[in-house]
């Protein structure tokens, strides 16, 4: 073996080793900007005919027939009663005379795209649902159920006032915020439940495919339409309801709504959909 072939072999070995090491290193590096770019590219490559802003319409963006049905449904949207209820609740004062408007920037109007945010004082993610219940409790009112009715109505109204505004989730320069983001990402990709599904099994590997009678939504923009009226539920549901029912559908015991894992998951999923417009409240089959 001459000297040149030894060098070639050594170089080839090093290249193979570098290729093996690089993905492992990449997986351990937290880079939300790169994640969001790759996330968007994955879906736009997979569905080149779908306009970027249309991903927020979930299953309706995946299928032309469904899209037409949805356009007709929007003439008399099933979330309308909830929206009206939310508007009334939002403007009604608490017993102490204050109201939701006092708890949010800009009186709570047109701010949905900024939730969830990382609260540096608390060191945790604060979702819109959590902020609403904290507002109630701070004003001497009992918190609402996180999964339906009143909470869905309030978030429906707040989402409606933000329609068309792009998600604008920030990750402050705080290692705890980056950690929360990373934990949310880990939750999204982790398989759980007896069916051994992760969130990504349905919403990354199989969007547009059917699972029983449902067409699966893409993960890109999946929270932009929340809260939603689901025909399957015959009622409105919040992001908390969506997360907990997803867990039980794969035969996993759901965590409590607004547990850290769900807050982090919402943070991650919202961040990677930055730039896509809020379309909530939505309607789904």
């Amino acid at each position, binding site marked *: 073996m001459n000297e040149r072939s030894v060098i070639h072999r050594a170089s080839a070995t090093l290249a193979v080793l570098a290729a093996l090491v690089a993905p492992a290193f990449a*997986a351990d590096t937290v880079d939300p900007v790169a994640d969001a770019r*790759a996330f968007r590219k*994955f879906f736009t490559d997979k569905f080149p005919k779908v306009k970027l802003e249309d991903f927020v319409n979930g299953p309706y963006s995946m299928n032309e027939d469904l899209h037409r049905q949805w356009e007709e449904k929007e003439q008399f949207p099933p979330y309308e009663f909830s929206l009206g209820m939310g508007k009334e609740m939002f403007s009604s004062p608490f017993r102490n005379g204050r109201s939701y408007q006092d708890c949010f920037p800009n009186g709570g109007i047109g701010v949905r795209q900024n939730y969830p945010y990382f609260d540096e004082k608390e060191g945790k993610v604060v979702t819109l649902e959590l902020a609403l219940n904290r507002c109630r409790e701070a004003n001497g009112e009992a918190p609402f159920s996180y999964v339906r009715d009143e909470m869905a109505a309030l978030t429906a109204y707040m989402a409606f006032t933000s329609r068309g505004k792009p998600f604008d989730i920030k990750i402050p320069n705080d290692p705890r915020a980056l950690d929360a983001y990373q934990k949310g990402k880990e939750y999204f990709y982790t*398989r759980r439940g007896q069916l051994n599904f992760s969130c990504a099994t349905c919403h990354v590997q199989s969007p547009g495919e059917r699972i029983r009678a449902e067409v699966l939504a893409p993960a890109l923009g999946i929270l932009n339409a929340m809260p939603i009226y689901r025909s399957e539920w015959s009622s409105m549901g919040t992001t908390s309801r969506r997360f907990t029912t997803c867990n039980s559908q794969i035969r*996993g*015991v759901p965590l409590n709504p607004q547990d850290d894992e769900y807050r982090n998951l919402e943070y991650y999923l919202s961040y990677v959909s930055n730039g896509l417009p809020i379309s909530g409240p939505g309607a789904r089959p």
Partner: protein
Amino acid sequence: MSVEIIKIALSLGLLVAGATCAAAANSEQDFKAAYAAAEAANKEASALRNQWTTTTSTLAAAKKAADGGDFDAAVASAREAEALARASIFQATSEKERWKAMEIR
């Protein structure tokens, strides 16, 4: 009697004895031991934030069978629940690294 026949007779005797033991009805004590083992495993899955709904329902089935005095069914369900809980623990542990394989990069 030849040595061979003695050997066969002894083997048959052992087989019958074994079969009798296996067919012996489970007692309340057996159920309590199997249930405690299943509950401990499910508690471990809970600490890992990864309980399965089927473990919970199978544990409930074991309890119901025991309350009705059917300890064979109760022990069978408790053992199944323990197996489910152990599978959920394995899943949670192995996913600590495996989730990265599914990540969009």
